[in-house]
């Protein structure tokens, strides 16, 4: 019976430990308090049920009742009997809380604040897990099954957080599970039969089994492997992700890799909002900055573009080298201040970042998409500064770009679903364009007002079911349609293109500080030219948007010179093109290769190398610990403080000699006299000459220290010890020598003894404590019959 009690308590504790991964989801620790209450209530109900000897099928009913009471106390509606007994009002409140969950999920980003709905759901879930765990482990005596509900808890943060769960919560949960397993099996072993030890004495049932110690060791090894194996196989990209990128988005073609925001919907939503609110301020020393970017969409489906899940390494590390551009580049810096209204998990920045300051390592940089993103937090209210390369392209230079090689990795960005109308249109438009740039330009100019395209936030009616055909026919749309349509056309022409999202420069600026609002969100097209990288083309009429840029290589097809609110090009770049020295002057292809290799390395370089280095250092430190400890001890003994009495010095030298003997497989006999030990040492190690004399001196010093009333100060025990040690090491095998240095048996023996001694002390303390408790037991106050 005591066994079942124990298992019940351990099952509750294991459940509580298994909730550790939830710490990754919640911002505060309220959930832990509630989990403790809930699990405790369930365990108490289970214990009560067993004490009342309820039939086994009623066990879950009792535990569920305990759970209900706990939830009632934690989430009261104010109408309970005696705070604990639920009433219909309570249940209605539970219903409300449950119903509020989807809204709460939508309203909060991870880590979430203490939302009552979410807390209720987590407490309910933990309570149900506790019920199942108790039923499995105690009721059915199958604690292995209890792992499934625990795994369910673990899977919640795993599913919610795409950047993975920290190792520590996993370890805590796993320890709980293993504890439960081992406790159950040890209980089984204990109940197997009468226990007795090697000396024939019976062992009481409550005494711990040596199997438990084995269990602890196996658990440590198993957990170490479990942590190390996934580290050895880093950067796991799921096969699903690789094969069908549209799947995570939920099929609407509107998913995003971060699983949080549909960028197109976000954009149209922001643009269509009645209210205008400030999202960020950017201050830059670039007199003519291009658009701020925060995302790209380069996966295409029949319904449109969707973002590719970004991958990258922390911005705090060195950023990968920039993609090659043979045009002139200028280096600038910019400072962003995001407001509380900014809700995206992507930090706006300029293309081709060189350096980011002020962001913590949760922020990652994707060198391919050239965006700064996070899998965990939103960029709400943060401030940071970036330094970036601003490229200036010219039409002539772009015309000189080589055609894209057949096996170029960017070919992936030329895929487009074949839509007959689009294919025909592209063929017609690019019929007399020679170079890729000219083809792009021809497609770009197609979206001119002359061709009937009109900017409108209200898109025309859908008729064909294919959005791009609708837009090409209706010729009415806003930046998203323009950008996606141009990218689609360019791709159909066989040139890599993607849609970029960001902000225009806005209409509200003061000196070099731009204030950007939700109305300034924008989308445009980026086209890839070998040797130049991604070149932006904004097909949206500059007249229609505030703060549009009309670059030289992509002049506004409408030709007019509108009242653009950009700073005049007169303020030419004041800074010298800083990057010309280290900018790739090699052939574009070579630069391309560099860029690609950089991208590839960036793919695999999650935070793992750092962790691996730390792990290696830790492991090395652990491995070196015995050897270092031995060294320090030897130094202390050979070079004792000067004020140490001669007797102590001789003893220290002698102890060192004994330890040296242990290290080299010549264990001393505690019953031997120093003289006998020295004689044996000389005999076994075949010491001769100076070494034998040295050993003799050490022995004599020890003898005198033991027996002489005032022993003389020993001469140079350090030198003697060294002589003996070298003599011992010489004939020993290589492995013995290595062991004596790295893992000295004497140190192991000392540690073992210390461990045993401290364990004994603790046991004694516990026993004394138990006695003390027994002495304070109120039972002693009662008149005892046998005392009379």
């Amino acid at each position: 019976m005591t066994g079942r009690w124990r298992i019940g308590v351990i099952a509750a504790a294991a459940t509580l430990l298994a909730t550790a991964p939830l710490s990754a989801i919640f911002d505060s620790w309220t959930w832990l308090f509630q989990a403790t209450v809930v699990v405790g209530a369930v365990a108490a109900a289970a214990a009560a049920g067993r004490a009342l000897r309820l039939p086994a099928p009623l066990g879950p009913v009792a535990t569920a009742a305990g759970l209900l009471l706990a939830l009632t106390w934690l989430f009261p509606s104010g109408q309970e009997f005696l705070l604990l007994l639920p009433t219909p009002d309570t249940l209605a409140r539970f219903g409300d809380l449950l119903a509020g969950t989807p809204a709460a999920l939508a309203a909060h980003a991870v880590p979430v604040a203490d939302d009552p709905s979410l807390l209720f759901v987590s407490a309910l879930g933990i309570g149900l897990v506790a019920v199942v765990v108790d039923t499995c482990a105690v009721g059915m005596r199958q604690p292995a099954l209890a792992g499934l509900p625990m795994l369910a808890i673990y899977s919640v943060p795993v599913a919610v957080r795409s950047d993975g769960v920290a190792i520590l919560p996993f370890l805590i949960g796993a320890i709980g599970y293993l504890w439960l397993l081992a406790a159950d099996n040890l209980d089984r072993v204990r109940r197997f039969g009468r226990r007795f030890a090697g000396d024939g004495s019976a062992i009481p049932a409550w005494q711990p089994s040596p199997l438990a110690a084995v269990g602890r060791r196996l658990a440590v090894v198993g957990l170490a492997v479990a942590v190390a194996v996934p580290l050895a196989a880093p950067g796991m990209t799921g096969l699903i992700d690789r094969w069908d990128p549209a799947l995570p988005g939920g099929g609407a073609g509107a998913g995003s890799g971060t699983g949080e925001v549909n960028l197109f919907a976000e954009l149209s939503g922001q643009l269509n909002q009645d209210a205008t609110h400030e999202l960020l301020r950017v201050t830059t020393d670039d007199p003519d900055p291009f658009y701020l970017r925060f995302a790209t969409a380069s996966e295409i489906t029949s319904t449109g573009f969707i973002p590719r899940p970004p991958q990258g390494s922390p911005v705090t590390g060195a950023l990968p080298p920039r993609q090659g551009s043979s045009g002139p580049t200028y280096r600038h810096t910019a400072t962003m201040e995001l407001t509380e209204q900014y809700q995206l998990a992507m930090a706006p920045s300029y293309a081709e970042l060189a350096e980011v300051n002020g962001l913590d390592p949760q922020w990652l940089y994707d060198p391919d998409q050239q965006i700064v993103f996070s899998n965990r937090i939103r960029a709400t209210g943060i401030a940071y500064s970036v330094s970036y390369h601003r490229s200036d392209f010219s039409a002539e230079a772009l015309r000189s770009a080589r055609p894209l090689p057949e096996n170029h990795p960017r070919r992936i960005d030329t895929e487009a679903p074949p839509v007959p109308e689009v294919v025909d249109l592209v063929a017609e438009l690019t019929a007399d364009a020679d170079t890729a740039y000219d083809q792009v330009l021809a497609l770009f100019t197609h979206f001119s007002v002359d061709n009937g395209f009109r900017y409108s936030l209200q898109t025309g009616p859908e008729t064909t079911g294919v959005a791009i055909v609708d837009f090409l026919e209706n010729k009415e749309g806003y930046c998203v349609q323009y950008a996606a349509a141009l990218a689609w056309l360019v791709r159909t022409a066989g040139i890599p293109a993607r849609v970029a999202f960001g902000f225009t420069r806005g209409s509200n600026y003061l000196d070099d500080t731009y204030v950007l609002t939700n109305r300034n969100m924008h989308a445009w097209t980026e086209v890839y030219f070998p040797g130049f990288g991604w070149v932006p083309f904004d097909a949206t009429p500059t007249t229609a948007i505030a703060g549009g840029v009309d670059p030289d290589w992509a002049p506004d097809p409408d030709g007019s010179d509108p009242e653009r609110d950009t700073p005049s090009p007169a303020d030419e770049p004041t800074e010298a093109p800083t990057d010309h020295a280290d900018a790739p002057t090699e052939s574009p292809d070579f630069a391309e290769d560099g860029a690609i290799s950089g991208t590839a390395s960036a793919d695999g370089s999650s935070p793992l190398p750092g962790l691996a280095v730390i792990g290696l250092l830790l492991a090395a430190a652990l491995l070196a610990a015995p050897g270092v400890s031995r060294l320090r001890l030897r130094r202390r003994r050979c070079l004792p403080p000067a004020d140490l009495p001669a007797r102590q010095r001789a003893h220290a030298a002698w102890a060192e000699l004994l330890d040296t003997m242990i290290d080299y497989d010549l264990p001393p006999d505690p019953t031997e006299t120093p003289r006998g030990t020295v004689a044996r040492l000389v005999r076994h190690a075949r010491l001769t000459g100076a070494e034998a004399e040295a050993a003799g001196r050490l022995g004599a010093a020890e003898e005198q220290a033991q027996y002489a009333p005032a022993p003389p100060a020993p001469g140079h025990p350090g030198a003697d010890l060294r002589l003996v040690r070298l003599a011992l090491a010489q004939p020993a095998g290589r492995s013995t020598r290595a062991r004596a240095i790295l893992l000295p048996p004497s140190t192991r023996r000392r540690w073992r003894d210390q461990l045993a001694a401290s364990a004994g002390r603790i046991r004694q303390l516990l026993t004394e404590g138990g006695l003390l408790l027994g002495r304070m037991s109120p039972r002693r106050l009662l008149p005892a019959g046998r005392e009379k």
Partner: protein
Amino acid sequence: MRAALRGLTTRGRSFLAAAVAAAVSALILGENDLFRVAALLGVLPLLAAAYVGRARYRMTCRRTLTPHRVPANTDAQIQLRLQNLGKLPTGTLLLEDRLPYALGRRPRLVLERLAAGQATSVTYTVRPEARGRYELGPLLVRITDPFGLCELMRSFPSQDRLTVVPRVTPLPAVRLVGQHGGAGESRARSVAVHGEDDAATRTYRHGDDLRRVHWRSTARTGELMVRREEQPWESRATVLLDARTAAHRGEGPTASFEWAVSATASVAVHLCQAGYQVRLLSHRVDVTAGRNGGEGILLDQLADVRTRPRADLNSLVDQPRRRADRGLLVAVLGALSPGEAELVAGARASGLTCVALLLDTGGWAHLPPAEREQTARDHRTAVATLVESGWRVVDVRHGADIADLWPGVGRGPQGFAWRAALAETVAGGAR
């Protein structure tokens, strides 16, 4: 290691399967965190197997039984002595000694740890309910890991035999005539009735009872002489057990045959201890036990005696007559038909004191009234037949105690009581 992997329990195999499933789904979903779970689940059974199979245990096991021969319903101590011959300490061993179910629950022991070279012994008690010979062992050793993922089973092939003899009831001392069975080697009976001149005497030794001084010899030899107790008298007895299946009724330990075996054992042991040379006769059993400690042989025979379906009563009752030795014949008989009763009656030879413990077997089983009536009638007929031919018959009913019935052997028809009284006076001095 391979053996250990084969020893994976259901839990261990499930862990491996779950690990594979988790690893596959982790690869498909690209979840590093799930892969961690898979790694943990996969490595645990392997670690457990490595722990369990890490050493080939070299151990010896010896079983000591005290006593080797034990009466039914009494305790026997069985000591297991285990020694670890290997160089590694053993882990926790779960020991289970294979016992026949008739010996009760199998003893289960948990040996927590046995250091290298250490030996340990542990004792357990069995309490056999029924007589017989029982094989003890082999000893099964189970090695398990802390999580119950892997379990190896080994067994020590050594077996030992425990003999459970029938229960022996001490019988009251009753004088039996016909105990002197002619000449033979020296056997002790304190009788000095015939020719006291030839009474063996010896010189007085310090401590001898003065009342035993043989004054006549003393006078003749001029030295203080005392009577010797030992006399060259031979006491022989034959105990006959009727083991025909047809003659007995009832099942298992409550069968009439068990009562007969127990009674036979009690009588044989009693006679042995009383100084008789006891010959035990049954179908295919014919052993003679000497006076000192010989009852062990008889009890061993009785431990596994079984009823025999095709046994012949004629050959059985013929045997005591065929041998020259006479003396006392105690027959424990089951149901006898009138014909068989005649046969038994005829087996009585002159000079042979015949005592029959005749079981009324109808009481040992539930019989239909007609059959019961028939059995009772046959029983009465058999009693009458035997008594008429000079047997002393003790009528045994169900539930009777042999110790209560035994004095009845001394009484009986044909002046047995008188002869017993005579024997009493004859032996009187010795008491």
